[in-house]
């Protein structure tokens, strides 16, 4: 009896505290899982259970995201903390098999010990276990062998080591660097990859390829470097932008709501905003913007976008283009088509309408050397993210009934008007992109 009451007292003393800690850890872990955007890959589109099954096309075949719910048979319910951390940071499964680098473990390697503990608490106790067998990869032999991935990991994945703060920078910068390089894994899309699919740079210290923009999944992930077009401007006391760049506030609003006064997320970035960025605390988004803003003028070796002309020439050209259209002087077939199919929303001055229709001027997406993403959005259309802030997903219609010639003409017009100076779009570019899309996009 005495023994029992002692035990009860002990339990009472320990348990409430334990429960409180767990709840807080689970809550923190949930936030971190959102920052890591785990759900974007591990849940099938339109669902919220991270029981896997979503397919990803890789150069060697289809792979499928796995069940990461705490189910003991089909999920990760049997993972110890150490096994969980090893999978997330080093890409090694509980059974010792290496993971495909579609899982961004080179980025997750930077996650701190405390955050990893919270993530573990969330994945073990914060989500319901779902029994769903993992789908086998559809990759033919010899690529289906996983052992070469060990070599890949050794060659390209960083040694798992939590982010080390740069003592030369302030706390905000370091928080931004931690998120960008780590959980938010921005580089997975925005940093160009080498021939072995490795990201060419994992931190700003690795050189100018870091976040320099890259083709991904038929879209183009813009450069996030402060390159004077759509990068984040250096911090200014009055919060203004220099010339054509977004201000930090523009960038923050973009991440939180998927749109700002200049532009809107489309393509793969829609998922990132919907599942992840909109839920980040404002101070974290500010830290991300601040960190990115400090890549002062560090352009990539092969810039993704076309250098903007000097401001005065741009202003003159902008006025000319707009005045021509307003006066009914449509000087090319592209201009005729622009007025017929685009101007109702994007307007004669190409500036669209704040937060409703994206601007085509000073737009990195318009100025990228590769026009593939532009062609794709004309053919397929797209939707802005739905967020807590904006419940209406404004859409760009699919204009696939336009011919390849007409799309090439109109995009060439857009890329050479209002001060834009990007290469012409060829008919063959449009045909090539159209072939990669679903049959519905045929003219």
């Amino acid at each position: 009896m005495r023994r029992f009451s002692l035990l009860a007292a002990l339990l009472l003393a320990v348990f409430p505290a334990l429960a409180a800690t767990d709840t807080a850890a689970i809550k923190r872990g949930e936030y971190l899982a959102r920052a890591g955007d785990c759900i974007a890959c591990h849940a099938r589109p339109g669902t919220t259970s991270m029981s896997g099954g979503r397919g990803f096309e890789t150069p060697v075949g289809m792979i499928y995201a796995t069940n990461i719910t705490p189910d003991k048979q089909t999920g990760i319910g049997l993972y110890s903390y150490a096994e969980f951390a090893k999978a997330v940071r080093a890409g090694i499964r509980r059974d010792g098999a290496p993971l495909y680098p579609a899982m961004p473990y080179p980025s997750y390697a930077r996650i701190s010990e405390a955050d990893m503990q919270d993530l573990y608490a969330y994945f073990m106790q914060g989500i319901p276990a779902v029994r769903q067998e993992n789908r086998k990869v559809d990759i033919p032999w010899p690529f289906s062998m996983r052992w070469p991935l060990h070599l890949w990991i050794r060659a390209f994945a960083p040694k798992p080591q939590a982010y080390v703060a740069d003592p030369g920078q302030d706390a905000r910068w370091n928080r931004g660097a931690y998120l960008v390089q780590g959980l938010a894994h921005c580089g997975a899309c925005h940093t160009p990859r080498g021939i072995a699919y490795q990201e060419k740079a994992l931190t700003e210290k690795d050189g100018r390829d870091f976040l320099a923009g890259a083709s991904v999944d038929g879209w183009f992930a813009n450069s996030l470097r402060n390159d004077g077009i759509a990068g984040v401007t250096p911090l200014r006391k009055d919060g203004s932008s220099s010339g054509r760049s977004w201000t930090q506030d523009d960038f923050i609003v973009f991440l939180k709501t998927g749109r700002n006064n200049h532009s809107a997320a489309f393509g793969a970035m829609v998922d990132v905003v919907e599942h992840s960025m909109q839920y980040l605390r404002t101070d974290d988004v500010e830290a991300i913007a601040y960190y990115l803003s400090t890549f002062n003028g560090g352009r990539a070796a092969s810039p993704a976008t076309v250098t903007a002309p000097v401001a005065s020439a741009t202003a003159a050209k902008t006025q000319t283009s707009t005045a021509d259209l307003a006066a009914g002087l449509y000087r090319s077939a592209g201009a005729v088509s622009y007025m017929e199919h685009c101007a109702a929303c994007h307007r004669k001055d190409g500036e669209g309408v704040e937060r409703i229709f994206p601007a085509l001027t000073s737009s990195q997406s318009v100025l990228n050397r590769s026009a593939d993403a532009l062609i794709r959005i004309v053919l397929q259309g797209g939707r802005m993210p739905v967020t807590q802030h904006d419940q209406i997903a404004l859409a760009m219609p699919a204009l696939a009934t336009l011919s390849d010639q007409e799309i090439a003409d109109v995009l060439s017009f857009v890329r050479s008007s209002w001060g834009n100076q990007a290469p012409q779009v060829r008919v063959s570019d449009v045909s090539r992109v159209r072939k990669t899309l679903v049959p519905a996009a045929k003219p």
Partner: protein
Amino acid sequence: MKQYTKMMSAMAMLFWFASSALSPASAAALLGPGDRMIPDNEQGKIIRQGQRLLSDTRRLLPQYVGAEMNCTSCHLSQGKLAFSSPFVGLSQKYPSYNPRAGRDVTLTERINGCMLRSMNGKKLAPDSAEMRAMLAYINWLSADYPAGKKVEGAGIGTINKNLKPDSVHGKLVYQRACAVCHGDEGQGLQRKGEMVFPPLWGEHSFNIGAGMARTYTAAAWVKQNMPLAAGLNAPLGQGKVLTDQEALDVAEYFTHQPRPDFPGKENDWPKGGKPADARY
């Protein structure tokens, strides 16, 4: 037999809806010829001028337009969009009996009806260069539609007239689906001194003589055409997201907000037949 035909056409409609929902891009987006077909000659210049006057009306004809509206605020996509009362085919339709006037009216008269009502402005002289240019554009759009050839998508479609409008619910629909562009107070949106989205009520909107001021007319148009940028369907991502009831409720709400009077309203429907939703 009649039943059977009805059922078949209902099935055809269903199929059409389903297929257009599944592959919105596969449907022909616009009626009439593309703008690239405008001939490169003097006549082409007049056609183009007519198109500009109809699309940029407020800016190009300020002395004739009282409202912050363009003709293409309602006749979307330069008058080429099905069910937004397209211009395509109108040349053969007029002269046509107009119950509101109680007689046959010409296309010129019909355009001037819009100038007085929807545009809350003044008539253009029938033989003015502006009127002739507008007619030239509409004639060019209508060239492939000889008398008797049906325009698929003529007019604005229909709405169930047995439904009863609910203005209180309409206000909620407005705030949810319309206010982002037309503004909380129906004021529309101006950018750099130019109208982007027209005001739906107030002194700069269409007057009570306009068709759009009538609940069921507005509801049918709204159902087909609003909101824009709502879906991936070409050309504007327009319409087909509100139910008949929602379209009717929101139409009741915005049509009955304060708006300019229409001088001369007492002359309308001289031979009777005034519709139930007429405003006077």
